[in-house]
């Protein structure tokens, strides 16, 4: 057995429990421990490439105990989570100096990472619920970490809607257990399929109800459009590295990933489900981007763009074709890189100038060269300018739309992409290019660690664009991940 798999959960948990115990007496522990843990996790995640295995916890056989399942899709998500997490912790070393209680910050951060790793690895429905709740609770507390009016209000809103989503999921899990007598994803999938065959292809109503609850719950978690109310507030109020984590990986892991896993691998995809995904995706794309245009707060603007970009991912997955799935997963990875970079940039701007209001900023290119250049890279990526990763994934999605015969969806995607470009031209113009509105002397320099993590992510923006050169034939990362979804139902 591959003992690396449970370590993805055990290592960050141990660090999270250890940090509050020690760091009352030793002040440097949280920074060093947090970064070391995330670094080792990021290194470990690269060892999972190309492996696929089922790990039986406690050496119990499949229906008795809990299984962890590592396959291409989990491997892709693990790398995204832990690399972005490493960038966020590096950034926090400097950024979190403005807050007190660093030990609780790092402890909660590591528990959030644990929750996401667990969601990605588990093959058990109830275990999935627990890890989802773990990641979510840590993120509620982290959103409210600043304890000001806005933070608390956003945190409460997020907490209420998020807990509602998890309760929906729990009801769904209970119904599935009552019908199939198992919690293992593969067993549930098998017995659902045999039940459907016995009933000439129609699904029994409890399955449909559970499916509806799952879609509602995970759409709430991934903030697709009718369910997006919590997202802008939460992203705007959270500390910058947390906004980066939330937008970069959390909504994708406990929202989009789980939705894709359940729909493709457990329930089995059908035309109606694909249509639901397409509608949710198309709506999110356009509503998010239109709401983003009028915003003047940098983080809030980026938050609305997150809704729009997740719409791209869901739309691409909803096409159901192999090319669409590849495009969707590629865009998911790209988006987590450039969107977390954008949020880190916004945090750096706020750290240095004390404001995020675009009307009050200007001319930051001279004062903050690193932030200016990296944000240019990120803006070009998200707007889809050729050499960067965002262009390639959007291109693949549009080609997939055309290939599948949905011409108007392709046109829709191009339109949204143009509006995104306009919106990011606005950000660049007002924040970085215009004449300076504030005295240069008042602007603080970017600390080393913040600059470092932004440069790393900017380099990743370029590196991920090289994946397109392989033509997605090479059995690394994206092709095996897409295979998992294309193959459909999982078996024992």
């Amino acid at each position, binding site marked *: *057995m591959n*003992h690396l798999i*449970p370590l993805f959960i*055990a290592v960050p948990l*141990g660090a999270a*429990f250890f940090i509050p115990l020690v760091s*009352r007496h030793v002040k440097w522990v949280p920074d060093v421990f947090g970064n070391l843990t995330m670094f080792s996790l990021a290194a470990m995640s690269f060892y999972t490439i190309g492996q696929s295995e089922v790990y*039986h*916890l*406690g050496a119990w056989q499949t229906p008795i105990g809990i299984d962890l399942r590592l396959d291409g899709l989990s491997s892709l998500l693990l790398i995204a989570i832990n690399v972005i997490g490493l960038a966020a912790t590096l950034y926090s070393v400097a950024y979190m100096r403005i807050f007190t209680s660093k030990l609780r910050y790092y402890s909660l951060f590591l528990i959030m990472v644990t929750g996401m790793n667990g969601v990605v690895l588990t093959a058990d429905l109830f275990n999935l619920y627990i890890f989802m709740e773990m990641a979510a609770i840590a993120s509620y507390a982290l959103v409210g970490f600043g304890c000001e009016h806005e933070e608390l209000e956003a945190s409460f809103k997020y907490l209420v809607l998020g807990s509602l989503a998890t309760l929906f999921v729990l009801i769904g899990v209970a119904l599935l257990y009552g019908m199939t007598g198992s919690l293992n994803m593969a067993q549930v999938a098998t017995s659902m399929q045999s039940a459907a065959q016995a009933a000439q292809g129609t699904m029994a109503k409890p399955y449909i109800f559970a499916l509806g609850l799952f879609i509602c719950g995970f759409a709430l978690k991934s903030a697709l459009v009718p369910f997006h109310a919590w997202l802008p507030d939460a992203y705007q109020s959270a500390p910058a590295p947390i906004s980066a984590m939330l937008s970069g990986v959390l909504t994708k892991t406990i929202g989009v990933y789980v939705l894709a896993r359940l729909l493709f691998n457990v329930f089995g995809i059908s035309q109606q489900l694909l249509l639901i995904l397409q509608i949710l995706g198309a709506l999110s794309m356009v509503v998010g981007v239109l709401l983003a245009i009028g915003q003047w707060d940098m983080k809030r603007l980026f938050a609305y763009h997150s809704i729009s970009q997740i719409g791209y991912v869901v739309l691409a997955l909803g096409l159901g074709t192999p090319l669409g799935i590849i495009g969707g997963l590629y865009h998911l990875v790209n988006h987590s890189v450039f969107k977390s970079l954008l949020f880190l940039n916004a945090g750096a701007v706020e750290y240095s100038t004390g404001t995020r209001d675009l009307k009050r900023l200007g001319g930051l290119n001279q004062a903050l060269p690193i932030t200016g250049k990296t944000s240019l890279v990120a803006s070009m990526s998200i707007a889809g300018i050729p050499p960067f990763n965002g262009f390639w994934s959007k291109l693949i999605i549009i080609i997939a739309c055309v290939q599948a015969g949905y011409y108007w969806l392709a046109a829709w995607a191009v339109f949204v992409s143009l509006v995104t470009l306009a919106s990011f031209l606005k950000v660049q113009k007002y924040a970085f290019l215009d004449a300076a509105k504030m005295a240069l002397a008042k602007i603080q320099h970017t600390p080393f660690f913040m600059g470092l993590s932004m440069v790393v992510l900017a380099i990743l923006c370029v590196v991920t664009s090289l994946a397109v050169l392989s033509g997605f034939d090479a059995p690394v990362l994206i092709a095996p991940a897409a295979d998992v979804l294309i193959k459909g139902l999982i078996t024992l």
Partner: protein
Amino acid sequence: MTGMSLIVKTVCRWLKGFILLFGVYIVLYGHLTPGGGFSGGVIIACAFILIFLAEGKLVETKIFSKNVAGELDSVGILIFWAAALTGLFCGGVYFKNFITTAAESHFKLFSSGIIPICNIGIGLKVGASLFVVFVILAAVKIVVPKKSDNINDHEEDEK
């Protein structure tokens, strides 16, 4: 906060030992009778909360301060975590129950492998952490703070 009347204090003085003992019994015999680490831990926390409510804040914080409770919280969960990890090293699989049980020792206190150890860890953790929750949520009176210097008792670290 000076606490409640003499009658309440006397009754609590008598009761607290029994409640605590009951909680410990529930934790230790979790694998044989109803209950377990969690419910036993809550009972232990309730015993301390009872003292807290009856005697007032001053007495309580001397016996069992919030910092100590916070550390016990971490220690309890680390016991559970370590039991899981020991399974990886001794039994070869994460969460392996590496202490085997002979059939004749069933229904005894020291049976069923790592389950009592985990129960103790969870009991410790839950007892300590729920006490902390009570202290921070309920005992802190925030009666519209004017200068917010009357509520600094829920911040203990980071000067």
